[in-house]
């Protein structure tokens, strides 16, 4: 224990998978020793590397507080938000491995091309479609709102989709996040186009590719029960929507 009000500091070794498309033909691992506090997060470590050691290190981040979904990456082999992963929760007697999320085209260092991910998202029509034009609020009971509450929390970080082994091998698969987005509206009592989304997901690259590995639920930084949401969409594709 240090003095009161003083936080312990220690050296953490980060091993980062680097790739510069202009000079490298293959990615390679590079290690950095960083002085850190137990209250720091992996994102702080990356900042220290970028600001003090190697300005060429590239990664995305915006809010730094787990809400924008920019900094999903593979930390010690698991998909996590760098800004929500505390150093004290990692075993720092060993190096901390950091690499880009898998299954999307690698652009540079920790940055991947997110376009295929967003394309799948757009395809499930993730917006409210209704013919009702209420003069005041479009009412919904507490239970009706509760039905899809979990899937409203998604921040589109792609941690789930890029943790899915089916997505790794088959980039055509819609992936967990797109199904979560569809679930959000399929089970919304105000929406009228659930069947359209179900038809889209009742396809070869839709929900039936899911093998229930639970990687997505484990990866989700928002604690969404992704695998459960997918199985509810499967049920709806078999029996029809039960809101």
């Amino acid at each position, binding site marked *: 224990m240090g003095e009161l009000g003083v936080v312990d500091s220690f050296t953490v070794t980060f091993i980062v998978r680097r790739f510069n498309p202009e000079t490298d033909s293959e990615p390679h691992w590079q290690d950095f020793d960083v002085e850190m506090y137990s209250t720091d997060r992996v994102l702080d470590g990356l900042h220290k590397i970028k600001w003090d050691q190697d300005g060429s290190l590239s990664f995305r981040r915006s809010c730094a507080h787990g809400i924008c979904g920019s900094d999903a990456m593979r930390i010690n082999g698991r998909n996590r938000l760098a800004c929500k992963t505390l150093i004290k929760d990692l075993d720092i007697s060993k190096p901390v491995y950091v690499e880009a999320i898998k299954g999307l085209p690698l652009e540079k260092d920790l940055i991947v091309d997110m376009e295929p991910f967003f394309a799948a998202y757009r395809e499930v029509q993730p917006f409210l479609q209704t013919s009702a034009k209420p003069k005041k609020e479009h009412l919904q009971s507490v239970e009706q709102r509760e039905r899809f509450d979990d899937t409203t929390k998604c921040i589109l970080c792609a941690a789930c989709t890029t943790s899915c082994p089916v997505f790794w091998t088959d980039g055509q698969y819609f992936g967990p996040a797109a199904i979560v987005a569809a679930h959000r509206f399929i089970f919304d009592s105000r929406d009228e186009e659930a069947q359209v989304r179900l038809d889209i997901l009742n*396809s070869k690259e*839709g929900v039936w590719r899911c093998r229930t590995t639970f990687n997505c639920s484990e990866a989700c930084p928002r604690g969404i029960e992704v695998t459960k949401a997918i199985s509810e969409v*499967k049920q709806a594709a078999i029996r029809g929507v039960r809101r």
Partner: protein
Amino acid sequence: MRRLKLERLGWIFMRVSGFFLIALIFTHLIVNVMQDGGVHAIDFAFVAGKLANPLWQWFDVTLLWLALIHGTNGMRVVIEDYVYRINLKRFLLGGLAVSTAVLIVLGTLVIFTLDPCPTDAAANLLPSFCTAG
């Protein structure tokens, strides 16, 4: 749209057949292996005796078809997952379909047409129990 429904059918089939396979496989194992002498007690006479009974014929044929179609559809999914080169994929899927068809036809034939003591065969080729009666 036709293709879409097939994928859903396959998913449901894996679950329904899996449910029945549990009962079929365990009955199969218990009846065959949990007898006196265990697996070593299985001989031609034991198999021939079972296949003389229409109940076991239908049991075995159900197990054969369900396990083969279940296993084949499972392998189809695995190939869809991992194989992208379209010619290799066609080759593997074709080989899978052919081998399953051959196994189903041969297996079904054996189960329903097995005659352990064909009347026109030489006596020294027949199992001993054929001459017992």
